[in-house]
């Protein structure tokens, strides 16, 4: 047998090239002449140039490739169980997955739905194949994540919180923040939602912190399942980023789109920052037990993925097309993370509200303090006493930290735009929209509600743009309720009917666990109702007072 003879050479036959296959598939479409295609979701953008599909993949290669990826994922999950992964997993980490995995399947499937919105808008059929694959990818992501969550529920020491997951998703104050993220993908102007907000910003920039940075932290906490699933998910994102960029390039050459593109890049970046950094920053920094000083902090990860990778190499080149990039917002977001402790304040808020959660939050300890101080100098002075209070008040019978005036924490206003509370007190703003007063965490969020989500933008009619709706202030839903009744109504009670799903510790013993009786006797209230009731002068004073912030009392 000749040394150069291989099976490939024996079996090879002439086939069509990848480019030819992609071209043939792209030629499947036509312009209907008997009946107009169904009315699609409208956009204020003009798309006259045919977008190109940079990936040139066809379904014949796509499905086997995805099945192979799935085989690896499910094989790894089996291996993790055989290797007794849960024996060594850090419960501090897995608890936060109750929140994260309650949120993420809905944004994923929303992205699948949004492919319907962009699929019809692009002239030509070439990119439709890309959108088709993204639609099926997102179906993959949503259900593979539901499967992972079920797997945690079946194998982790405390399944409570996983067992109510989608009901909790609908009710929790924290998951609504994730819903703002998801509904943004598929509601309102089709290009704003499905192209700029979803693919150009969320997927291109922020999935790197979501699906790359976070799995690394999972692995450091003995959780090999999350990296297995989410790195597989992320491997699909490169195609989605290609779809987004191709669509963007089809619009960017038309100067009449620039004004809207500038609006949407600004809105999408700011809201992704406000939502994703709050949540993922908290998971990575506060859900970990690994305090290796050589690893990157969330701020350092953000600088790598968002600043260097997205801002410098993706956004800045758009300037050559005449797009004005919102440099100030990128700087402001960086300042919020590094100088204004955005992530730390979010984690602090989640901890204050622990009793209305459906996952456990453990107190940070001395070992954690040292790491935080090393990575974020000045952290201890601002947050050290708070976490000592939190540990002290984690014992049933103590007054719930949410209502404990000894601590010094002042409950925040809710941001009407990003739905995260107004945690950076000095940045707090308020404004009137359609005759009603609203509160915002930042100027960026005020602008998003009042200026971007409106019928007109800088004098230009924007009839397709969405609107904020619903009962956006969670606290208003339970205004005047006793917190025990609210928790019961939320369904965040364990099957015994009295023990809270959430606990402010990781002690897995019935005697250490809080029940409804331990929290009863305190009323929830809507900060916005009170704020709206103020006279203009009183409001000015209240705003100035809010901006001054608060000081946590020393904990001895």
């Amino acid at each position: 047998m000749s040394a150069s003879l291989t099976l490939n050479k024996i079996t090879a036959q002439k086939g069509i090239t990848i480019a030819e296959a992609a071209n043939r598939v792209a030629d499947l479409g036509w312009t209907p002449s008997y009946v107009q295609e169904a009315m699609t979701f409208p956009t204020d953008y003009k798309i006259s140039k045919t977008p190109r599909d940079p990936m040139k993949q066809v379904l014949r290669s796509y499905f086997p490739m995805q099945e192979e990826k799935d085989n690896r994922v499910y094989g790894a999950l089996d291996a993790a169980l055989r290797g007794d992964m849960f024996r060594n997993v850090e419960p501090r980490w897995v608890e936060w997955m109750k929140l994260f995995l309650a949120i993420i399947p809905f944004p994923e499937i929303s992205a699948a739905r949004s492919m319907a919105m962009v699929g019809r808008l692009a002239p030509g059929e070439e990119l439709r194949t890309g959108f088709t694959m993204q639609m099926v990818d997102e179906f993959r992501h949503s259900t593979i994540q539901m499967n992972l969550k079920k797997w945690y529920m079946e194998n982790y020491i405390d399944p409570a919180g996983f067992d109510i997951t989608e009901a909790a998703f609908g009710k929790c104050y924290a998951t609504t923040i994730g819903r703002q993220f998801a509904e943004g993908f598929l509601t309102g102007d089709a290009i704003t939602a499905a192209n700029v907000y979803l693919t150009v910003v969320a997927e291109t920039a922020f999935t790197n912190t979501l699906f790359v940075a976070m799995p690394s932290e999972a692995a450091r906490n003995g959780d090999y399942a999350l990296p297995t699933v989410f790195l597989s998910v992320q491997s699909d994102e490169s195609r989605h980023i290609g779809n987004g960029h191709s669509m963007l390039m089809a619009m960017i050459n038309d100067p009449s789109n620039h004004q809207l593109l500038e609006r949407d890049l600004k809105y999408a970046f700011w809201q992704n920052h406000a939502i994703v950094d709050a949540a993922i920053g908290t998971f990575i920094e506060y859900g970990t037990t690994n305090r290796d000083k050589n690893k990157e902090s969330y701020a350092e990860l953000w600088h790598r993925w968002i600043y260097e990778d997205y801002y410098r190499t993706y956004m800045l080149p758009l300037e050559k097309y005449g797009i004005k990039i919102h440099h100030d917002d990128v700087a402001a977001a960086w300042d919020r993370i590094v100088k204004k402790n955005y992530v730390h304040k979010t984690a602090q808020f989640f901890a204050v509200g622990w009793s209305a959660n459906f996952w456990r939050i453990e107190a940070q300890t001395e070992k954690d303090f040292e790491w935080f101080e090393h990575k974020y100098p000045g952290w201890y002075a601002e947050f050290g006493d708070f976490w000592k209070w939190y540990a002290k008040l984690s014992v049933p019978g103590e007054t719930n930290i949410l209502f404990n005036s000894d601590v010094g924490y002042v409950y925040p206003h809710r941001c009407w735009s990003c739905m995260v509370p107004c945690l950076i007190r000095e940045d707090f703003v308020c404004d009137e929209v359609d005759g009603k007063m609203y509160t915002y965490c930042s100027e960026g969020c005020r602008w998003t509600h009042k200026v971007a989500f409106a019928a007109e933008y800088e004098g230009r009619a924007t009839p397709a743009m969405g609107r904020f709706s619903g009962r956006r202030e969670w606290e208003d839903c339970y205004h005047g309720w006793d917190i025990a009744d609210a928790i019961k109504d939320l369904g965040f009670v364990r099957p015994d009917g009295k023990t809270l799903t959430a606990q402010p510790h990781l002690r897995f013993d019935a005697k250490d666990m809080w029940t409804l009786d331990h929290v009863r006797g305190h009323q929830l209230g809507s900060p916005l109702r009170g704020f709206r009731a103020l006279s203009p002068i009183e409001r000015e004073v209240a705003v100035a007072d809010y901006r001054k912030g608060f000081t946590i009392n020393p904990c001895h």
Partner: protein
Amino acid sequence: MSAQANTATAEPTVAKSGAAGAAVFPGSDSRKYNYFDPKGRKATHYEDMTVDVQPDPERYLLQDWIISFPDGTPTYSKDWTAAKSSNWHKFRAVDQEWERTHYQRQSTICGMVQNTIENGRKSGAPARFDPAWVKVLQNHLGAYKHAEFGLGTSTMQAQRYGYTQMVNNAILTNSSYKLRFAQDVTLYLSEIALDLPGFDVNAGKQHWLEDPIWQGVRKSIESVMGSNDYLEQYFATNVVFEPLVGELFRSGFLMQAASAQNDFITPAVVSAAEADYERNLANTVELFHILGTDPAHGANNIALFNKWLAKHAELALDAANRLQPIWSQPRVKVVSFNEALSQAKNRIRGIAAELGLTVPTALAS
């Protein structure tokens, strides 16, 4: 006394492991999703992956939808179809598909189709196809692939509008199957073209756009694509077009005629679509059966479905009749158009009977 109550007085449990069973405490054995009623005695894996992922203000969505379209329409609206339901959450896809089963099935089909084509080509099979049959494949299978693509894009659009995750995911997998098959046929024809001198891969689209034989099918497909009601699109696709035109052409012609023209490849390629349709049909019948027997809206829904049936059946029947000349084009005649159409009508009558619908007179015999 329950086991949980016992633990309250037992020795403190110090968990040294994060594994299930390492400690017993309230809720430590709550290891099932407990927020929906399974269809059967126990929830299936599909139900666990699917139910309630798309939320609903009438179930758990405390704060309601938080972004709306400019006219106030929320992120999901029941008004996107004329059909009404007392419980949109009742439907479960009969094929129980979630991502893993979907990729396994699609990937298996891709492998089957590719192996068939590769092995057929290796043995020189396309060159042995009857020359008249090659023209049929070039012109008519080439035209038909566009109909499949139209249904794929139509259902891709429709999967945005359903009121529950179960409805939307069933429509999504339908779209995925249709688009895969449209591509299967496209690549199949391009590949056998390499072995058949003079085979024009562009002829199919030209026939689709211009040949009078195909204009009824194109009109029928464009009417499905043009509907503003997502359930009408889903209904017209699987209850009307597929049995009257899709199966008629695939099973009633290609699958039966091909082998007599020395073509053993085309039936294997096309067979996947027939199996796809069985699943899509089962899902569709289940959904429309639930809506047609809805305690509050059943009668109105049936009236609506009868209207859709009449509208799309007229178009599809016209489309089917216009295809008749194709049955005469192969050199060896195996099946007559009238027999095939009779079977197609029989099929749609069976589906309509399952759903309690009135078959239009033109389909009665």
